[in-house]
C-alpha cells in the first residue's frame, strides 16, 4: 500500500468532499446497523403492550430508512466528486510528468504502456476510490458494529459469534490462497490463447497458403482445453465458498437459538432477541464476504497505483539549463568523440564519432540499416545524450543549453511522417506557431506540397483526420518536410524523409533545399546514394563507426564501404553482370 501515498496530496485538495463523504458513510452505516436493534425494541414494546413506544419506534424506523437513502445519495455524490477530482488531477500530473521525460524515458515505457496507464490504470484507481468511499470505509464500521451488537444483544453467547468469524476467516484465507495460485496459471494460459490468436490473425495468409488451418485449430484447442480445466477448478472453488460461509452462519444461528430455547425459563426476555441476533449475524456474514471481494479488487488497483507511481518516480534522463539564453545557437555542429548506447541496448550504437560541420553546409549521411544514421541525427536534436563525448551546436555543449534555444535552432523531419489531427495549417504551424500564411505557402512550395494542398477547396484549412488517414504516404512526407521548413531554423535534419516520394518530386525537393536555403546547415540521411550525391560532405557510417567522410567523388575513390553501397545500387547491367 506504499503506492497509496501518491494519492495523498490530491486528497488534500478535496478535503471538504472527503469529509462530507465520510460523514455520509458513517450515517448510512449507522442507520443500517441500528435497524435490527430498533426491531428488538419494537418487539419488546409489543410484549409489554406499550402502544406509545411501538408507535415511537415505528416512526424511528421510517426516519432511519429515509436517512439511509439521503445519506446514501450524498455519499455517492461526494465519493464521485473525490474520485473524479483525484483521478483527473493525478492523470494530469502523470501526463505533465511524461511530457518532462526524455525521449529515451518514453521509449523505455513504450507509448502503448503509457497510454494504458493513463486510461486503464487510472480507471482502476478511480473505481478503487469510489469503492473506498462507498463501501470500504463502511466495512470496518459494519463489521465491528454488527460484531459488537451480536455480543451486546446476548452477551452469554459471545463465543458463538467469535467462532463464526474465525471459521469463515479460516476457510476464506484457505480458499483465497488456492484461487490466487489458480488465477496465476489461468492468466498464463489466457496470454497464450491471445498470442496464438493474434499470430494467426496477422499471419492469416501464411496459414492459409500452407494449408495449416486444421493444424492451428488443433494447437489452439489444446491450449483452450487446458484453460478450460483451470476455469472449471476455479468454478468449483467458487461454488463452495458461498454455501460454505452461509452454512457456517446457519449452524451458529441454530446453535444459539437452541441454547436460548433451552435456557428460556431462566431468561424469558431472550425470546425477543432471536430475530435481531439472526439479523446481525447475517449482516456480519455479508459484510465479511463483501469486504473480501473488495479486497480482491483493491489488490488490482494497488498494482495500477504502482504502475502510476513508477511513472511519477522516474527522473527525466535529460535536463536542460533553464538559466541559459533562449537565443538561437548558430549553425555549426560538432561531434567530439561521441559514444552512445540505447537504454535497452547492450552494445553501443555509435562509437567514438568525431566530425565538424560549418554553418550553411549540406551534409549527407549514408550507411547500412542499423549503422547508426538516425541515432546520430537524434543526438543533434538532443533526443538522447551521449554516454561519452560532446555534441556542440554553435560551439555550445548541448548539456548546457536552454531547451527553447535548441528547439529554435534545430528543425527535424522524421523518417516516419507523423501528422496530428487538425488542419494542414495547424500541422505546418507546429514548426512555428506565428508563421504567416505566405510563409506556410513558401515552405509547402519547397516541399512540393503546394500542388495538392491548393487543390483542396479549403486549401490550408483542409482537415487532417485521425491517423491522417486522408493523406497518402507521399503527401504526409511532403507536409512533414514543409513543417520542418516553416521553422526556418539554422539547422535542418531530414531523416530518410523522401523515401515515399517519386523520383521526380524528390529531385525537386533537393533542388529547392540547395538553392533556397544556402545559409541553413542541412543534414540528409538517405538509403540511396543518389539523394546525397551533391552534398558538401558525406559521412559514411558502418556499424556505429564513422568510417569515411568526403565528397561523392572522393569517397568513390577512397572508401570501400561507400563503393559497396554504391555498387549494390547500380543496375546489374551497369555492373556488367548480365
Amino acid at each position, binding site marked *: 500500500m506504499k503506492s497509496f501515498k501518491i494519492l495523498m496530496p490530491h486528497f488534500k485538495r478535496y478535503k471538504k468532499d472527503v469529509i462530507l463523504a465520510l460523514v455520509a458513510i458513517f450515517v448510512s452505516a449507522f442507520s443500517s446497523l441500528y435497524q435490527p436493534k430498533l426491531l428488538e425494541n419494537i418487539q419488546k414494546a*409489543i410484549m409489554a403492550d406499550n402502544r406509545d413506544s411501538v408507535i415511537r419506534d415505528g416512526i424511528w424506523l421510517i426516519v432511519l430508512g429515509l436517512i439511509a437513502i439521503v445519506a446514501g445519495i450524498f455519499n455517492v455524490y461526494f465519493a464521485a466528486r473525490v474520485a473524479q477530482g483525484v483521478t483527473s488531477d493525478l492523470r494530469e500530473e502523470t501526463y505533465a510528468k511524461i511530457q518532462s521525460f526524455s525521449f529515451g524515458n518514453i521509449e523505455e515505457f513504450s507509448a502503448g504502456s503509457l497510454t494504458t496507464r493513463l486510461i486503464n490504470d487510472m480507471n482502476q484507481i478511480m473505481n478503487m476510490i469510489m469503492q473506498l468511499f462507498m463501501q470500504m470505509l463502511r466495512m470496518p464500521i459494519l463489521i465491528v458494529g454488527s460484531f459488537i451488537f451480536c455480543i451486546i444483544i446476548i452477551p452469554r453467547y459471545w463465543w458463538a459469534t467469535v467462532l463464526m468469524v474465525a471459521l469463515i476467516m479460516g476457510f476464506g484465507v484457505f480458499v483465497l490462497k488456492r484461487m490466487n495460485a489458480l488465477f496465476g496459471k489461468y492468466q498464463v494460459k489466457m496470454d497464450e490463447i491471445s498470442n496464438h490468436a493474434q499470430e494467426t490473425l496477422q499471419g492469416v495468409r501464411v496459414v492459409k497458403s500452407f494449408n495449416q488451418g486444421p493444424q492451428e485449430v488443433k494447437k489452439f484447442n489444446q491450449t483452450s482445453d487446458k484453460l478450460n480445466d483451470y476455469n472449471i477448478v476455479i468454478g468449483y472453488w467458487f461454488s463452495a465458498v458461498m454455501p460454505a460461509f452461509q452454512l457456517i452462519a446457519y449452524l451458529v444461528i*441454530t446453535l444459539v437459538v437452541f441454547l436460548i430455547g433451552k435456557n428460556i425459563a431462566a431468561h424469558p426476555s431472550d425470546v425477543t432477541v432471536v430475530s435481531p441476533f439472526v439479523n446481525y449475524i447475517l449482516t456480519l456474514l455479508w459484510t465479511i464476504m463483501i469486504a473480501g471481494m473488495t479486497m480482491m479488487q483493491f489488490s488490482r488497483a494497488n498494482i495500477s497505483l504502482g504502475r502510476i507511481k513508477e511513472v511519477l518516480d522516474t527522473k527525466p534522463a535529460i535536463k536542460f539549463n533553464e538559466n541559459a539564453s533562449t537565443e538561437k545557437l548558430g549553425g555549426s555542429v560538432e561531434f567530439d568523440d561521441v559514444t552512445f548506447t540505447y537504454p535497452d541496448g547492450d552494445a553501443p550504437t555509435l562509437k567514438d564519432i568525431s566530425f565538424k560541420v560549418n554553418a550553411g553546409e549540406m551534409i549527407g549521411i549514408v550507411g547500412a540499416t542499423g549503422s547508426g544514421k538516425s541515432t546520430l541525427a537524434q543526438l543533434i536534436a538532443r533526443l538522447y545524450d551521449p554516454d561519452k563525448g560532446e555534441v556542440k551546436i554553435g560551439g555550445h555543449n548541448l548539456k548546457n543549453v536552454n531547451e527553447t534555444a535548441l528547439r529554435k535552432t534545430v528543425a527535424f523531419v522524421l523518417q516516419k511522417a507523423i501528422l496530428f489531427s487538425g488542419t494542414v495549417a495547424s500541422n505546418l504551424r507546429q514548426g512555428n506557431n506565428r508563421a504567416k500564411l505566405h510563409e506556410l505557402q513558401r515552405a509547402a512550395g519547397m516541399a512540393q506540397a503546394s500542388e495538392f494542398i491548393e487543390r483542396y477547396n479549403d486549401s490550408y484549412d483542409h482537415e487532417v483526420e485521425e491517423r491522417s488517414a486522408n493523406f497518402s504516404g507521399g503527401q504526409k512526407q511532403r507536409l512533414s518536410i514543409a513543417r520542418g521548413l516553416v521553422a526556418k531554423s539554422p539547422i535542418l535534419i531530414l531523416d530518410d524523409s523522401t523515401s515515399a516520394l517519386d523520383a521526380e518530386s524528390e529531385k525537386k525537393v533537393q533542388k529547392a533545399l540547395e538553392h533556397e536555403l544556402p545559409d541553413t546547415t542541412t543534414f540528409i540521411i538517405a538509403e540511396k546514394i543518389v539523394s546525397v550525391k551533391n552534398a558538401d560532405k558525406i559521412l559514411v557510417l558502418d556499424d556505429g563507426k564513422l568510417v569515411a567522410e568526403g565528397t561523392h567523388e572522393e569517397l568513390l575513390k577512397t572508401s570501400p564501404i561507400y563503393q559497396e553501397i554504391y555498387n549494390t545500387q547500380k543496375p546489374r547491367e551497369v555492373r556488367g553482370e548480365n
Partner: protein
Amino acid sequence: MTDTKKAIKYFAKYLKPYWKGITVVIVLSLISSGAAVIAPTFLGRSVTALTTYLGDLKKGSAHIDTFYSALGSMLAFYVLSMVAIFIAWMVMSKFNADSTNDMRENLFSKFQRMFVRYFDTHQDGKLLSLFTSDLDNIFNAMNNAIFEIISQGIRFIGTIIIMFMVNAQLALTTIATTPFILIVSIILMKKARIYLDKQQDEIGDLNGYITEQINGEKVIITNGLRQESVDGFKIYNNRVRSAMFKGQFYSGILFPLMNGLNLLNLAIVIAMGAWMIISGQVTTAIGLGLIVTFVEYSQTYFEPITQVTSIYSMIQLALTGARRLAEVEEQPDEKAVPNGEEISGLNKGVKLENVHFGYNKNKEILHGVSVAVDKGKSVAVVGPTGSGKTTIMNLINRFYDVDSGKITFDETDIRDIKLGSLRNNVGIVLQDSVLFSGTIADNIRYGKPDATMDEVISAAKQANIHDFIESLPEGYETQVSDSGSVFSTGQKQLISIARTILTNPPFLILDEATSNVDTVTEEKIQKAMDAVIAGRTSFVIAHRLKTILNSDKIVVLKDGNVIEEGNHHELLKQKGFYYKLYTDQTAFE
C-alpha cells in the same frame, strides 16, 4: 431488438448440448430456493413456540418440543438449501466453462475458414478482443448473472407465494411499494446508461489524444511543443472528469437507494405487524412470529430487485459480446471445393485471362488483365504503387476471387480445383514476413511439419540464412520472440523464403519486400530469390526494378491495365513507361 434476439439465439445454441446439466441446475435451484424460502417460517414458528412455552410455563403445563422440532426443521431446510445450491453451482461451473470453451474453439476454427477479406477489413485488435474481452464478459455473465436471474426469479415468485400463504395482509404490505421502486430504478438505469455512454465516448477521445501525442512525441519534442501538449490534455481530461462524475453518480446511487428503500419497506411491514397485534387482530405470540418471519421475507423479496439492478451492466456486456460472436459465425466460409480437381505439379502453366477485380464493388482495381506464365519460366510484374500488383497474388492463391474473367492452372479454372490442393501447389513469399512463436526450425518447417532437420538446413542454405542461424548461440532452436523483433526485416524475409523452399511448390509467387531494407541486405535477399526461382515456374511482384532484370518476361501494370510486356531489353527499346520507371529509379547522372 434483433440484436438481442441474435445474442439470445447464440446462447441457446451453445447451451443446448448441456440441457441435462441445465435441467439439474434448475431443479436444484428450485429446491434450494424453496428451502431457503421455507426455512425462515420455522424460525418464526420457533419464536412463536418459545413465546407460547413461556406463557404456558406460568400455567405449569409447558412443552418445549414444538420449539425443538421447529428449530430442527429450520436447520434441515437451510442445510438442504446450501447443499442443493452447492451441487447446482458445481454442475453449472462445469457446463458454463465447457460451453465457453466451445465458443472459443469454434470462434478460432471459424477464423481459419473465413475469407481473407474479413481480416483485411477488420482491425486485429478488435478481432482479438473477441477472445480476451467478449468471451470473458460472456463467461462472467453466465456464471454470475444468467442463472442468478433464474434462481432469483424463482426466489422472488416463491417468496411472494409463501408470503400470501402465511398472511395476505402483511404480504400485500410488503409488495405494495414495488411498482414505485421499479419505476424509479428504470428511470435511473436509463439515465445512467446515457451518461455511461457519454463517459465511454469522452474516454475514447482522451485515449485518442494521448495515443496521437505520445506516438508523435518526437515531433512534439523537436518542435518544442510540450507545454502545448499538456494544455491540450487538460481540455480532454476535464471533459472526461465531468462526464465520468455524472456517469458514476447516476449508476452509483441505485444501490444505496435500493438499500434505503429496503429499510423503509421493512419499517412499513413492522408497523403493519405491530398494528395488527395492538389492534387485537392476532395474538402477541402469533404476531411476533409473523413479524420475525416477514422481516426475513421482505429481505429475501428485496434481494432479487437489488441484485438484478447490480448485474444489469454485466448482462448488457454479455449480450453485446454474444452478438459480436454471432456476427462472426454468420460470415461465409471459404469455398473449399470438396469435389474439385486434385492437382499435383504443374505441366503447362498458369494464366490470367481478362481478369476484372475490385476489393469494393464500386472500385475496380484490375480492368481485364491477362498474363501467361509458362512452365519453367519466370514472369515479373512491375508498376507504380497502387497499380494492382499484389492483388494478382491474392487472386492466384484464391484469397480473393475474380469478379469476371478467370485464372487457370494447367488450363483448369482454379475455382474448380480443391482449395487445399491449389494452395499446396502454389507457394508464396509475402511482402511482410510473418514468423510464429516457436523455434526457427519450427518456422522453417511450418508448411511441412514432418520435415527432417536435414531438409530444414538445406532450405536455410538455399535461402542464404543458414550461416546467420548457425551464428546464434542456440542455432536452429533459437526461439522467435512474440513480435519477432530480434530479427531484422531482412532476416525475417530470408527465413520465410526458406519456409517456402522447404515445401517445394511447383508454382511460386514472390512478393518483394517494400520496407526499409538497406541495399546490402537487399542484395542477399535477391540472391536467395534467384536460388528459389531457378528451375521453378514463378511469378515475381517487384517493387525495385533491378531485381527482375533476368526475368523471362516483364509485365508492366499501370492503373489496373497491362500497358507493356516483354523482356528487359525489349521494354527499354520501346522507350515507354518502363523506360521512364527504370531511368528514374537508377538515375546516377
